[in-house]
């Protein structure tokens, strides 16, 4: 069976971005969160809602039928709207669907929106699959990743302090992001306090709050027709989704799945890992950033910790890793997170990231993993 490279043959661009700040759960309705981000993205693109031909809403926690009641408040234009659920990668998958819709030629302008409000508990389906295990609910996500941290530290002779430096960097990045849930520079002493599980402390675990993120996706034809500012359009060169395969007993699934998905995305975009200037990865827990930096081929196994320590992954370093503050500081409101990564990378590639701008950024990558397990990677670039 042949595999076409749609995004190579039919270029797709991010032409507008918008966010509602990620924040603790509040009285704000999801409708308010969503339309705030959507309006902001339309304004940024310089278009109006009737220009949008379809919408995909990435959400995992709102329940059925969330899109129309929200987006019709921008005008009930009757366009197709679809909710997209892919656990933590829901917002990434909304972008992926919008890419596909535009690349297929069905639409020239599509909105990808991520929005969520946690209602207590994630309600993940795998727990209802009828497959028992011996864990009795003792291995929640922070312990799953604490166990990966234990294995990584033992294998590579890395200390808990070195792992914590991921959080030190990302909290510092988040401090200059007005949309971040956590906007405080933290000392290593603060980061190492309050143990949660294994080496993971409170500030090495992401906050799950609420928020929204939006990206307007358009074709060449859409840009021409609406006379959009081409210099601010960022191209999406690759959009790859994969699910967990079998990797052999004891192999960490999150990193193995990331390596496969990343490799496919680099091939689709026709680039090497060393070409990437900015990355937003699924750093829900500090150890993950080290695992994914290595799985994506930024450095050999076991070296990410010392590269973080020496500032190679800082804004202004070899490449900027989680310049938004990542899930650790910007936050992880689930549905918005993957779309928000595309927003941040677009901002960076446009050179509009202000105090956290990585100078000269040309190629960016977004990466989310989600319960299931799923992985979604996008590669973006500007000329």
């Amino acid at each position: 069976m042949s595999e076409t490279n749609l995004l190579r043959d039919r270029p797709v661009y991010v032409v507008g971005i918008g966010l509602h700040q990620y924040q603790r759960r509040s009285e704000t309705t999801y409708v308010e969160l969503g339309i705030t981000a959507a309006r902001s993205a339309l304004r940024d693109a310089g278009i109006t809602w009737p220009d949008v031909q379809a919408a995909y809403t990435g959400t995992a926690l709102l329940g059925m039928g969330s899109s129309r009641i929200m987006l019709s408040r921008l005008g009930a234009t009757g366009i197709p709207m679809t909710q997209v659920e892919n656990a933590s990668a829901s917002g990434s998958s909304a972008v992926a669907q919008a890419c596909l819709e535009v690349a297929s030629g069905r639409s020239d302008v599509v909105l990808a929106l991520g929005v969520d409000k946690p209602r207590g508990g994630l309600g993940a389906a795998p727990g209802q699959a009828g497959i028992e295990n011996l864990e009795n609910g003792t291995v929640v996500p922070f312990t799953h990743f604490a166990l990966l941290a234990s294995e990584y530290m033992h294998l590579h002779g890395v200390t808990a302090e070195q792992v914590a430096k991921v959080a030190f960097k990302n909290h510092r990045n988040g401090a200059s992001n007005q949309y971040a849930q956590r906007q405080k520079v933290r000392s290593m002493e603060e980061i190492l306090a309050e143990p949660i599980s294994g080496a993971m402390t409170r500030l090495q675990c992401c906050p799950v709050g609420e928020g929204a993120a939006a990206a307007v996706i358009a074709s060449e034809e859409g840009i021409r027709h609406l006379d959009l500012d081409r210099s601010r359009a960022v191209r999406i060169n690759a959009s790859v989704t994969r699910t967990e395969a079998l990797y052999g007993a004891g192999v960490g699934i999150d990193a193995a799945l990331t390596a496969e998905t990343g490799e496919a995305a680099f091939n689709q975009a026709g680039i090497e890992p060393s070409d990437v200037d900015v990355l937003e990865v699924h750093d829900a827990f500090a150890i993950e950033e080290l695992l994914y930096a290595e799985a994506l081929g930024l450095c050999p196994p076991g070296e990410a910790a010392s590269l973080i320590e020496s500032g190679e992954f800082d804004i202004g370093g070899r490449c900027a890793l989680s310049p938004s503050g990542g899930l650790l500081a910007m936050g992880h409101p689930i549905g918005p997170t993957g779309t928000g990564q595309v927003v941040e990378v677009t901002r960076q590639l446009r050179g509009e990231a202000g105090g956290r701008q990585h100078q000269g950024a040309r190629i960016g990558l977004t990466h989310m993993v989600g319960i299931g397990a799923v992985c979604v990677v996008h590669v973006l670039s500007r000329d």
Partner: protein
Amino acid sequence: MTIQARHPHLLRLTDPPVILGHRCTSCSRVAFPPDPYGCEQCGSSCEDLEELDLEARGTVHAVATVHRHHRPYPTTPFTVAVIELSGGPVIKAIVAGSQVGVGAEVEGVLVQDLEDTEGNTLVDLQFQVVQ
């Protein structure tokens, strides 16, 4: 009062206890937990999966002492380990005590499950370092 396994499909309450996995008769893949639907390696249906006894013994690959838990039991702190069973599959389970490190040899022991409120004695599997 009866003695029951918390997970009767996963454990045999013998001394020493036995962990129940499955083996695919079509592709020979050994897995834990036993699956009611099919084989992830070759796609054979559950009729091709046969029950397989796994020794409750293995090597620790990773450990984490848990300080926050959303339920009253087990009481914190408790220690969870990734254990590669001698029979192949890798599982996660509670290890008694906090002295276990990566590389330790551990064996299964049956413990009374503290969450039981039905008047029955419910037992579950934990691991301990082999003396």
